[in-house]
């Protein structure tokens, strides 16, 4: 710590050069924060997945519906504690860009299946009582300024009504929240019974089943048993854990994690070159000063530490500023895009990883100049000076 002033003064020896280097680090970590936050939205479902929940979909694809009759057959399996279903509605609110998840569900069974969603009892009861009732997550209610009692029209893109209409109107009966801050609540749930009755086609089907594995049962064995039960039927199933389901669902958008990793990899590689060059120049310019430090009694390790500290300090200054602004922007994006891309979140793990990267990149960028400084021959350096 007593060397901090020396390190600080050395860092700011060339103000413009240091500022530009810090700016490049700033941009890199700003990008990191933004991409991590958005990337999280694409894998958030995987992280919050419940290991004891299984998803049963049509073997061909998620788009193909499953017969409603499967509900009781799945429930009859010994390894199944409870089961419910949901379907993809795929409508929008007012304008096509206002898209979010809408699912016809069994109200009580759905909230039993997802205990992480919290809804006041009286609101759930009101939802159950009202055939055209709906509940929305807090994110969605905040985004559109909805309040309980509002009548919300949703324009269907798939499900026309039996009367030919495409506008489905729902009475907002409740607003739910999530225990897990990483879980999105940009959802609208409404009664499957109303959906079943009013839709023009595909009656007697659902999009997928969700089941909770019975205590002590092996989820993998339960999944196999269910798929075996429907094997060779017209609607074969594919049962997987919730995490696996979320992963396969997100792959529809491409391998976001790989794209993010490639972009960040390129950015950080460039950053290392820029910072490494800055540190090399900095050490080259003050060979005689480093020799003087060693003459005064600063040991090899002290000189190594001073140069490395300078490199890490530059990374931390730019990185923390970039991460800080990135965090603020991610908060804003999460609010603005809650409906279209729910779950944008800069996780503590990502923040910790970023700080570790700053320190690691600082050490990598500074290690060769620092070793050069450490191995400096005092006599040669003073003679050259």
């Amino acid at each position, binding site marked *: 710590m007593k*060397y901090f002033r*020396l390190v600080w*003064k050395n860092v700011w020896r060339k103000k413009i050069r240091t500022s530009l280097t810090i700016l490049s680090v700033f941009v890199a970590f700003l990008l990191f924060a933004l991409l991590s936050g958005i990337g999280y939205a694409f894998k958030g479902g995987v992280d919050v997945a419940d290991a004891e929940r299984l998803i049963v979909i049509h073997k061909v694809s998620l788009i193909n519906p499953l017969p409603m009759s499967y509900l009781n057959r799945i429930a009859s399996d010994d390894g199944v504690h409870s089961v419910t279903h949901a379907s993809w509605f795929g409508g929008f609110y007012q304008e096509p860009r206002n898209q979010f998840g809408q699912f016809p569900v069994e109200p009580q069974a759905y909230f039993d299946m997802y205990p992480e969603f919290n809804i006041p009892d009286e609101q759930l009861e009101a939802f159950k009582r009202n055939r055209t009732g709906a509940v929305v997550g807090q994110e969605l209610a905040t985004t559109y300024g909805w309040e309980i009692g509002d009548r919300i029209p949703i324009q269907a893109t798939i499900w026309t009504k039996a009367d030919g209409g495409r506008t489905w109107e729902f009475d907002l009966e409740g607003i739910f929240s999530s225990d897990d801050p990483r879980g999105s609540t940009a959802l609208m749930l409404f009664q499957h019974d109303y959906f079943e009755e009013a839709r023009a086609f595909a009656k007697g089907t659902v999009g997928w089943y969700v089941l909770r594995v019975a205590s002590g049962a092996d989820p993998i064995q339960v999944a196999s048993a269910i798929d075996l039960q429907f094997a060779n039927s017209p609607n074969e199933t594919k049962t997987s854990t919730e995490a696996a389901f979320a992963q396969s669902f997100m792959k529809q958008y491409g391998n976001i994690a790989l794209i993010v990793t490639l972009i960040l990899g390129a950015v950080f590689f460039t950053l290392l070159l820029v910072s490494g060059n800055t540190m090399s120049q900095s050490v080259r310019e003050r060979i005689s*000063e480093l020799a*003087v430090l060693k*003459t005064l009694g600063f040991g*090899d390790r002290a000189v190594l530490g001073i140069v490395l500290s300078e490199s890490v300090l530059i990374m931390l200054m730019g990185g923390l500023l970039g991460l800080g602004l990135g965090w603020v922007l991610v908060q804003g994006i999460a609010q603005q895009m809650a409906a279209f891309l729910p779950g944008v979140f800069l996780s503590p793990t990502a923040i910790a990883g970023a700080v570790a990267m700053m320190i690691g990149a600082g050490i990598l960028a500074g290690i060769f100049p620092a070793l050069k400084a450490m191995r400096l021959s005092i*006599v040669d350096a003073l*003679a050259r000076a």
Partner: protein
Amino acid sequence: MSDILARLDGVSRIYQKGKERVEVLHELNLEIPKGDFIAIMGPSGSGKTTLLNLLGGLDKPTAGTVTVGNAELSSMSNSRLSSWRSTHVGFIFQFYNLLPVLTAHRNVELPLLLTNFNSRERARRASIALDIVGLADRAKHYPRELSGGQEQRVAIARAIVSDPSLLLCDEPTGDLDRDTADEILRLLQVLNREHGKTIVMVTHDAQAAEFANRTLHCDKGTLEAKEAA
């Protein structure tokens, strides 16, 4: 023996320059009594600076031994030599070699960063050292804001702040005008006479050498122990 601060016994220093072996010092013997002020003169390449480097533990002899106080420098590791230098020897260079990013006060304080003194004690000692060289009022000035003579005074303050017994000066007045040079040399005399510092000064300047107690002439790697007038 107790009056001898530094001793060189049969010291040779050979450098390898490509395929050529260059013997800069040849079986040199020298005793430096405590409190002495020695000027070493000689032509360029005669080994003056090499001799200074050996005395300061910056370099090691190819043969022979260098002893300063109770420390046999030629057998010490680099890390021990670093530690030894920080407390036993002060260096003064021709071009001052102050760190341009630090104020005069912070430059003087630098060697004390290697001690266990707290910041207040370091500041106190740095202030005393600056006071001794007559630059207390320039403590907050950066080197670029000081004249050459003032910079050299700061360098002297830095050299004495750890209270070393030995000061090694390599052409300390080589970059200064006559009047300023004389001021610096008088300051060195004061440090020698009033503060008991043993000083070894390499110089090309015969007038500078007159400020020393005695002058040794270095030539072709040997030291002629003839006394200057």
